[in-house]
């Protein structure tokens, strides 16, 4: 077990390192990707396509559509109305 414990300790350190390594790398690649995409877009058409604005929430697993609809209705009152279409993917908030 003592050998197991040292393996465990090693995996604890190394595991967290690898998880961070992969996710940090992903973070930078995501940033680069977004930068490229958004520069390309803003160059190509500065006012052509109106991006979806504002709240980007996630509609997730196992959520009934009625719940979504209900929350969407509430949210639409809460959000600032600038006359711009807002797309809502809502997570319902349970109490």
């Amino acid at each position, binding site marked *: 077990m003592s050998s197991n414990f040292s393996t465990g300790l090693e*995996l604890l350190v190394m595991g967290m390192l690898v998880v*961070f390594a992969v996710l940090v790398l992903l973070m*930078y690649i*995501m940033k680069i990707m977004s930068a490229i995409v958004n520069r390309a877009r803003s160059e190509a058409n500065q006012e052509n396509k109106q991006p979806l604005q504002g709240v980007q929430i996630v509609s*997730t697993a196992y959520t009934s559509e009625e719940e979504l609809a209900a929350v969407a209705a509430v949210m639409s009152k809460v959000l600032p109305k600038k006359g711009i279409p807002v797309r809502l993917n809502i997570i319902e908030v349970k109490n």
Partner: protein
Amino acid sequence: MLESIQELITTTGFSCLTWQQGLMILVSFILIYLAVVKEYEPLLLLPIAFGVLLTNLPLAGLMAEPEEGKVGGLIYYLYQGVKLGIYPPLIFLGVGAMTDFGPLIANPKSILLGAAAQLGIFIAFLGAILLGFDLKEAASIGIIGGADGPTAIFLTSRLAPHLLGAIAIAAYSYMALIPIIQPPIMKLLTTKKERQIVMEQLRPVSKTEKILFPIIVTVVGTLILPDAGPLLGSLMFGNLLRESGVTERLNKTAQNELINIITIFLGLSVGATAKAEVFLTPQTLGIIFMGLFAFAFSTVGGVLFGKIMCKLSGGKINPLIGAAGVSAVPMAARVVQKVGAEEKPGNFLLMHAMGPNVAGVIGSAVAAGVLLARLG
């Protein structure tokens, strides 16, 4: 005639019901109660509970292996999809199709919280070793802290299939208990001021970014950690079906009928591994204990890293959202929203918590990959 009746009586289940099986039947009733009345992740816990029930009714043979000239039981065949590692990636396919990674793309830094919140996996792994579990068992127990059912089942089916029942039950139960487990830890580790931080609205994310994201994650994740490939690949394939906009038929089926069918098969057969003789051991208590431990430390990891990011960002990041990094989508993000709104009514943290929340799914898959690579 009388003999025949006598024979039949000796072949009833009653006559050979052990007290352990009786106890397991009670356990299944409790699980059904938790699923139906308490609504603890009922979509999985109810099938699991029914699997526990069926497998412990003596002689019914639903998990019986095929023998010379005799076919196996129904759940034995359904179980092959778990054993061969088929169901969890297919569930992930559906989860990918249901998940919007937009909040993560809008705020890439939040992916780090999804990394930090894997802490509980490795802490509980160490803890389980101390409790005397062997390495493979300990890794399977640790993964409970990933707060991701399919990931936990996938890893356990590869490393310690005899613990599947207990680990799946622990994982889904604690996921359902997130609203009870997390808030005290979140409050303990943060100041009131931190919890009241209002975050900037997220930028909009373009369709192109959403389409590129799953491809990038698949390539980068799998190139670095090939063992994370099956989970990451299927999660991201499902997401690509969703975001591409040209495969709506497949997207709809992946996130509805396919995942539902697989969920029924997976739940029943994972539950059916919990036979009395393997479930009623001190190990199960250890698993239940270490599972809670894992959830707690994952939360701690996420929140503490949230505090670091809060500091580094000059107070722009509310550390509460770190708690969502455990995944348990979207339950953990809701908890963040609720705790945040309690401290400061109207503070809408939900969308900010979704970034770490979905990152936590990726983080857990990567952590599972590390464990598989070393111990598989």
